[in-house]
């Protein structure tokens, strides 16, 4: 690689970093603007919008609502995803590839179509739109990601570990809970946080399956449709910071997994 192309590529790289970060930084800055009008330049600054977010009981309750949905759907995804991974990993049987394909299916369906199909299916089952419907849709959507991460981790579990447990008298259930599950811990943390972020930030499924109470992205969306305001910036910034902190924590957990055990 010549020197010039290398310099060119580093420029493209840093331009890309700027492209990714500048819009978000501007959004954060705008949340400190002491005016109701969104737009540059910012002449005076205030913290009122942020204080307002934590005082606004609607925002706080929607925030809790989104959190409950994210945590519950993640727990379901982790349980089902791990179960499917144990079935698919290290075992060959008739129809294995079909089950794997169907497992991955929700991940490749474009968002809007996934939301519409869940909406129609919920109607068939007589499920009302609202919290339960959203939890169910998020859980289904997140299972493929859990399976991919957990299967990758299971593939590195030495057979001797479970065999040793069995030699010591454990049955398959005990050896799963006392050997396999602890081994999967970093993968489960990583996949779990990833699922929570996906659920917390999901718009299209929450929008079509939600009842009267909005989730956080749906609330931001409906506020946006009635006009931009620094209040939205403040809410979005809180979401941004939380997401980033959780994401970094999960990434570190996954990284430790990559380094071996």
């Amino acid at each position, binding site marked *: *690689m010549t020197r010039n192309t290398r310099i060119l*590529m580093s420029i*493209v*790289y840093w331009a*890309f*970093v700027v492209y*990714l970060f500048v*819009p*978000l930084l*501007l959004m954060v800055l*705008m949340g400190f603007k002491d005016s109701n009008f969104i*737009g*540059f330049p910012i002449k005076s600054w205030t913290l009122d919008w942020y204080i307002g977010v934590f005082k606004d009981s609607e925002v706080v309750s929607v925030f809790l609502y989104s959190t409950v949905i994210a945590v519950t759907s993640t727990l379901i995804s982790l349980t*089902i995803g791990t*179960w*499917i991974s144990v*079935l698919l990993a290290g075992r060959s049987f008739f129809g294995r590839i079909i*089950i794997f394909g*169907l*497992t991955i*299916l929700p991940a*490749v369906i*474009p*968002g*809007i*179509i996934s*939301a*519409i199909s869940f909406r*129609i*299916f919920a*109607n*068939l089952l007589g499920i009302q739109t609202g919290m339960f419907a959203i939890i*169910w849709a998020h859980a*289904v959507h997140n*299972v493929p990601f859990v399976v991919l991460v957990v299967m990758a981790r299971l593939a590195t579990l030495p057979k001797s*570990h479970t065999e*040793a447990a069995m030699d*010591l008298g*454990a*049955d*398959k259930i*005990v050896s799963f*809970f*006392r*050997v396999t599950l*602890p*081994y999967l811990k*970093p993968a489960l943390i990583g996949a779990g946080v990833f699922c929570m*972020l996906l659920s917390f*930030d999901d*718009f*299209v499924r929450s929008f079509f399956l939600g009842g009267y109470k909005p989730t956080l992205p749906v609330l*931001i*969306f409906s506020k*946006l449709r009635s006009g*931009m305001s620094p209040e939205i*910036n403040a809410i979005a910034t809180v979401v941004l910071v939380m*997401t*980033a902190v959780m994401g970094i924590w999960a990434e570190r957990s996954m990284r430790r997994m990559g380094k071996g*055990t």
Partner: protein
Amino acid sequence: MSTTPKPDAADGIAPGGATRGSDRPTFWGRLTHAGPYRAVTDFVFASTRRQFILLAALPIVWVLFAHLGPILQMIRVSFLDSYPPAVGYTPQFTLDNWASFFKESIFIKPFFRTLMFSLSLTFATLVLIYPVAYFLARHVKRDNQMLLLLMLLIPFWVGEIVRTYAIMILLGNTGAVNLILKTLGLIDRPIPFMFTGFSLSFGIVYLTSLYMLMPLYSALEKIPPTYTEAAADLGAGAWTRFRRVTLPLSLEGISSGCTLVFLISTGLYATPILLGGPSTTLFSQTIAGFFHVAGDKWPTGAAFSTIMLLTALILSGTFMKLIGSLTRGPQK
């Protein structure tokens, strides 16, 4: 974290459930010696067939019911003349919903616009991101790679709505870009970036670029630097090295990156509403329209969703096949 079973892993598994240094059996000890547990496990573990059925039952039911069910029901509804069913009326089979797609240009136009948008933006993202991934994988020190990747991942975790809003602030009439251009004296009146094909494309690339970066990065990272060095020793120039060594070896990353970006951009709904205008209506908005109005339009929406899904899956499937045959081709 230690993964080897701790020395006391046999707690309670040993006969009698007693453990070294303690007379009290552990939870697992008590469980494995409980009568009902023994009865069940003795029955299950008696044959591998039983074990397998018990293990496989939940996953099979789940994927058939929760993963495949909604899609099948959507396809079924697309052939009905009314849904949700009215009381006392049995929906009849009809092809009208599918036919209406081909009759009206207000439906076909957004459909092809979506395909054109998604395909061209996928290509643009590939061209834009390839150097970024290459730089990251080949020219950055190993330790720093993870740090830089992590940095790029932060915006990626933030949802569709927040990032779309960030783009609205950047490109608005009183946004940062217009302010800079005005300060520099390049323009007198703000350029209306928003609600055009430009703002929509800008936003979609912003949302999807990381899905291109990750597969490309992991493909490029796997290529040993010795390969290109060997090619250089044999007299290959920079362009030849790229075309004959790096590009063919990164095809897998290109294939999965493009498929991901294409499928995601066809499925976006909030972004075209917030960033697009009347001339950029995408098919997702057309589909959603059938679900906001009275219920009898649902079958048409279901038919259109199925058309979109089939087109997207066939296109990306063909593309992956094509790339797959390319990967295998030159080696023979």
